[in-house]
């Protein structure tokens, strides 16, 4: 395995059981939340993962950080399969692989000061000593754009954007190599979103971090990601360079997704050729046979129902799982 791979997922599967029936209540409904996802995150790059709610992207974030254990599959960090780690090795892995959540407030202990929230993990992991802890924490606060004088304040004394900065500082405190960000800006106001996105990009540049950036907002992902993977019902349907995927989406779902995004330009209001998907995302409990997107796809044929399309690379290196991929780039924006 090449050393310039920061994180690699191979055929990750996560099935949850819900509901029960019969007198003894055996679980009967299996939610196929993540069903055979593989990706590669090169060092220093950002992999964006997009998809609508229920597509499994948040489950994926928890799988690759081992907050939950996969049903099958592997995740390699620095060449080590983290799904089998335990004890000290697991703790070391956790240090190197940090996660940032959507809701910064609920992930911060309200009874701890910012100094504690950021400093405690550093001290526990032996990154700082008691004597230099405060200085290190304040350096980090400065770095993420927090006023170092607010060292002794508590989470409720900060605004949403500042809390997300605290969350980022806490993630950075352990000097990780990979950060998985799960909808890090979707709870924030537009002006604050931009600040946080800029911060993440600068940190990546300065510290050589690799990001998995999960979001439902396509334009945010477009802005930050080098590569983008599009998920639909637990599977990746298309993955490739951002520019390729956004400019010439190959999967009909990607195409529909992009065309649904409102364009911040009133003059284009009636000019764009809109693709309107009908209906909702089907249930992950009993997903459609063959291609999972076929029930909403205007191009679907009997083949799509019978045979699940494999992920295949095209000439540009972009990978797509469709029997009838799009040829021509569509115009956007």
């Amino acid at each position, binding site marked *: 395995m090449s050393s310039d791979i920061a994180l690699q997922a191979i055929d990750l599967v996560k099935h949850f059981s819900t*509901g029960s*029936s*019969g*007198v*003894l*209540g055996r679980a009967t409904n299996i939610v196929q939340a993540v069903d055979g996802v593989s990706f590669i995150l090169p060092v220093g790059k950002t992999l964006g993962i997009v998809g609508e709610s229920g597509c499994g992207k948040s489950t994926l974030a928890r799988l690759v950080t081992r907050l939950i254990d996969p049903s099958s599959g592997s995740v390699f960090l620095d060449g080590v399969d983290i799904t089998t780690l335990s004890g000290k090795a697991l703790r070391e892995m956790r240090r190197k692989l940090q996660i940032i959540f959507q809701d910064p407030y609920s992930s911060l202990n309200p009874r701890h000061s910012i100094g504690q929230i950021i400093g405690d993990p550093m001290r526990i992991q032996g990154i700082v000593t008691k004597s230099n802890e405060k200085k290190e924490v304040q350096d980090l606060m400065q770095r993420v754009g927090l006023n170092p004088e607010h060292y002794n304040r508590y989470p409720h004394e900060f605004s949403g954007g500042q809390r997300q900065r605290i969350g980022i500082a806490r993630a950075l405190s352990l000097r990780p190599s990979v950060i998985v960000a799960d909808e890090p800006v979707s709870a924030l106001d537009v002006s604050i979103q931009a600040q946080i996105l800029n911060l993440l990009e600068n940190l990546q540049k300065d510290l050589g971090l690799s990001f998995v950036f999960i979001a439902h907002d396509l334009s945010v992902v477009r802005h930050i990601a080098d590569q983008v993977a599009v998920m639909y019902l637990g599977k990746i349907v298309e993955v490739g360079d951002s520019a390729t995927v956004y400019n010439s989406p190959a999967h009909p779902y990607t195409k529909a997704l992009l065309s649904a995004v409102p364009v911040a330009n009133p003059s284009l209001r009636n000019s764009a050729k809109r693709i309107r998907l009908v209906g909702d995302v089907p249930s992950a409990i009993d997903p459609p046979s063959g291609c999972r997107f076929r029930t909403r796809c205007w191009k679907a044929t009997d083949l799509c129902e019978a045979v699940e399309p494999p992920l295949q690379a095209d000439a540009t290196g972009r990978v797509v799982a469709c029997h009838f991929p799009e040829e021509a780039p569509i115009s956007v924006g």
Partner: protein
Amino acid sequence: MFMFIVRRVFFALVLLLAVSFFTYMLFAMLPSDPAALTCGKNCKPDVIAANRIRLGYDKSLMEQYWLFLKGIFAGRDYGAGAAAFSCGAPSLGYSFGQHECVTTLIAQTFPVTAYLSIGAFVLWMLIGISTGAMAALHKGKWQDRAASIFTSIGVSLPTFYIGLLVLFSVVIWLGILPFPSYESPFENFSTFLRTMILPWLVLAVLSAASYTRLTRNGMLEAMNEDFVRLGVAKGLTTRIVLRRYVMRQALVPIVTIAGLDFAGLLGGAIITESVFSLPGMGKMSIRAVVESDLPVLVGTTMVAAVFIVSANVLVDIAYGYLDPRVRVK
């Protein structure tokens, strides 16, 4: 839904069986000896041994438990010869302290507990919900503050203390009511009422406090829900919004807790019954504890367990009807 109910009931029965086993074993392993309790001063070892055989305590614990279980369905015979007697099914054993089948004793004492519980329950729900609603509707005003004082007093004062205080003041010092002397409502309804009114009130007022808080918080929470705002935005009157939107939402958790509280009461309102000398099941259990009357202890514990387990099942089922979201598809 039907399978859900069947399953819940099945598990409830399994649970009750487990409870009966552990209750029986736990009490049987207490360091008291029921046989030794049957004779007084001249308790010679041979008398104790003879009584142990007569009461069945010579058998192994598992066998005793089996006899106890069998008795529930088939009844049970005690002793031999001219002094033999039996307790018909469902038999929960025989109390040698009270010279009566435990089932009969429970049948005698349970109505008292039931009247006490039902009356107090109705009163406390009325008081709790109405004061809670008043507090919520007048949030921050004097009504709200009064309700908040009421709840903090209500939840912090022990029933025992308040019960005695009320009894002393109303009955003994002021003489407004006669000293409670329980009569069945079918025998003497006015005595029944005069006896029950104080225990009802004491139990109701003290328990109402937490329901006031629940109702108030539930309603305030509901009032912030978008669907309540949409109800108002539809043009509905305040009364309809409160009833169909706010109360409906606030009552769901209350029903759950009330069901369990009520079942707990049916298992014996021990302190209230003791203070007001009501010959109910709770008072009987206390007596059984003091006198190590094992069969009564096991019996009352089982009855209480049946109430609590059934209440859980009923609340679960009721929840399905009250909240469509938890209904099983």
